């Protein structure tokens, strides 16, 4: 129970990775550890409002592929959704700044939303996307927030 606030930004793939049985253990374990820390209040999770669309979109996709997604999964999402600090478009982040950031960092607009939120709140961006991390590390853009692979979350 440290009093220093640890801030994380996570994307939908990290959240869903904690629930997927067939993913590499280090990824789902890391994601699980993060969720438990968020639940206990050890870390504060910041997400853009679009996170909700991304998770629900991912679940729709899973269901349409015939995956057994139960009501518990939705309930788990709602449980965490209440704990997240949600950053709203036009209030906490602006389309224009995300657009400029995406062009500057040469990432997608989607990546940039999460990175911009992380930059604003001084959080680390945790992702399951190794390729993105490799790209960002290679290019060392000076104003990027800290980012890390979810498998390394301790």
């Amino acid at each position, binding site marked *: 129970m440290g009093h220093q606030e640890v801030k994380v930004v996570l994307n939908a793939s990290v959240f869903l990775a904690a629930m997927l049985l067939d993913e590499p253990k280090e990824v789902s374990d890391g994601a699980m550890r993060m969720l438990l820390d968020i639940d206990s209040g050890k870390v504060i999770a910041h997400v853009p409002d679009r996170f909700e669309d991304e998770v629900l979109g991912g679940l729709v996709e899973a*269901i*349409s*592929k015939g995956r057994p997604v139960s009501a518990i999964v939705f309930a788990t999402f709602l449980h965490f959704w209440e704990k997240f600090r949600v950053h709203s478009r036009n209030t906490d982040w602006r389309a224009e700044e995300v657009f400029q950031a995406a062009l500057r960092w040469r990432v997608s607009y989607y990546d940039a939303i999460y990175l911009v939120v992380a930059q604003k709140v001084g959080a680390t961006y945790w992702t399951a996307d190794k390729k993105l991390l490799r790209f960002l590390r290679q290019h060392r853009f000076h104003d990027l927030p800290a980012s890390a692979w979810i498998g390394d979350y301790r």
Partner: protein
Amino acid sequence: MAKSKGKPRADDKALLAELDKRLASLQEGKGDWNEFWLWWDEHFAIKGKGILDGFLKQKELARGWDSKSKPKRKQS
């Protein structure tokens, strides 16, 4: 790879002012739309093949069904 990036150039301002002027007169019923779109393409368009297809492909993947083949009848 596009190098222009986000920073607005000085002539962007003039270009947008010209756009507003043209749109205003079209709204008043003056001017010709065909000519407008030719001008539009010379100034605001992006060259590159398959961009729309790439965009639609991502949307398609999110559907979970493959529209080329029939949706799988998977028993769970």
